[in-house]
């Protein structure tokens, strides 16, 4: 069989042109279209628990450790209450053991030559003749340990208070994670808007016997952040809900009576 190559080429040439035009158009489309897609980048600090503790990889400023000044304790006073601000200022209630009289001291005020210089959450520093004296709050010295346990519908509702730390059993939290209706039965929240942007969530209703009530949330509290994630959208709140099973601690920043409070819990 003889093949007439000239005729065959003549017949194929139009198809070659068509192929070339199609290829050119595809190339132009390729140039015009984006080269890269969109990938999700997790900006959340949810799983970065070390950030909270200023760990090695965090963006936190380097901690400059000052040489510790030896502090002596004061035995003749009882520290009964501290009202301290974040700047280590504020006032205290102090009782003299000898005459059982109580005094209110604000920062830099003096009692028997001792000047109140710094206030912390659990103790204060007083200074006398360039020497520092530490006075711990009475209740903190006595370690408070108790637990609240009840058994409802085969779910152990455990919250342990051990000194300064509050430990919540994971099973108790999971009973809420696995049943969203239970969450909405026990708490109602509304968004708070500032300049059309969400600026926290207000607790409108909270059941006292629920996990939320037991952990200290009250009506009219405004939840500003959870685990250092500022709540500016429903998705921020949902992110916390989603990641709760991987979280080992809970840190709530709430606004109550125009004061910012922090609630810290460990999840066991």
């Amino acid at each position, binding site marked *: 069989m003889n093949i007439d190559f000239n005729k065959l080429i003549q017949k194929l040439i139009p198809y070659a042109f068509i*192929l070339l035009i199609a290829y050119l*158009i595809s190339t132009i489309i390729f140039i015009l279209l984006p080269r890269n*897609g*969109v990938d*999700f980048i*997790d900006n959340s600090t949810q799983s970065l628990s070390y950030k909270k503790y200023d760990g090695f990889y965090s963006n936190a400023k380097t901690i400059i450790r000052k040489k510790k000044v030896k502090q002596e304790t004061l035995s003749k006073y009882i520290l009964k209450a501290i009202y301290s601000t974040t700047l280590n200022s504020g006032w205290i209630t102090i009782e003299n053991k000898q005459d059982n009289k109580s005094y209110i001291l604000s920062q830099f005020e003096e009692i028997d030559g001792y000047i109140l210089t710094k206030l912390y959450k659990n103790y204060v520093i007083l200074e006398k003749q360039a020497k520092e004296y530490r006075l711990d709050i009475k209740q903190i010295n006595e370690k408070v340990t108790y637990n609240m346990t009840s058994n409802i519908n085969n779910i152990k509702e455990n919250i342990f208070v051990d000194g300064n730390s509050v430990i919540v059993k994971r099973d108790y939290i999971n009973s809420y994670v696995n049943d969203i209706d239970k969450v909405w039965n026990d708490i109602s929240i509304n968004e708070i808007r500032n300049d059309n942007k969400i600026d926290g969530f207000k607790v409108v209703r909270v059941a006292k016997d629920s996990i939320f009530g037991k952990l200290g949330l009250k009506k009219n509290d405004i939840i500003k952040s959870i685990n250092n994630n500022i709540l500016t959208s429903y998705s921020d709140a949902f992110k916390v809900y989603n990641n709760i099973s991987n979280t080992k601690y809970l840190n709530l920043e709430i606004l109550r009576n125009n004061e910012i409070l922090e609630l810290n819990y460990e999840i066991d």
Partner: protein
Amino acid sequence: MKKIFKLCIYFLFFILFLLIFLPKESIYNLLEQKLSQQNIIISDEKRNEKLLSLDIKNANVFYNEVKGVNIRDINFFSLLVYSKVEVNDVKLLESLSSFFPPFIKNIELKHSVLDYQNINISSLGDFGLLNGKIDLLNRVLILNLDPSSEMKRKYIKVLKNMKLKEGRYNYEYRF
């Protein structure tokens, strides 16, 4: 007549070559960018460009930075006159299982020039059997659901958003 027939053949070949050379991955990139404007991000997927289709495997879908869905396999196929998108094995995040059944076995979207006005939808999953269409001219999404017993038992709240008619649940959404 012969000339017109020849032109038609040339045109069909042109369309075929164009579909083969079309940068499918770049078109998919454009789709991802458009979806990201609606805060929907498809991430971590593996892409495989074929002669006339594009395969996407193991995609995680995020909405408002929250992971919602994992999809095992998506297939885009088009011959211009007939297009099909097939989505297989959609797993909803466990925490969403209290809102909606967590597993969808298959979702199919089909469009044909013979029925140019509608994109047909069919789906099968833990929720039951779903059929419907997107009416492109009237801009309406119509869904008809035959719910499974699990759906009727556990997700009555979802069904309350639909209208019950002759044993089937109907849903309409205008966009």
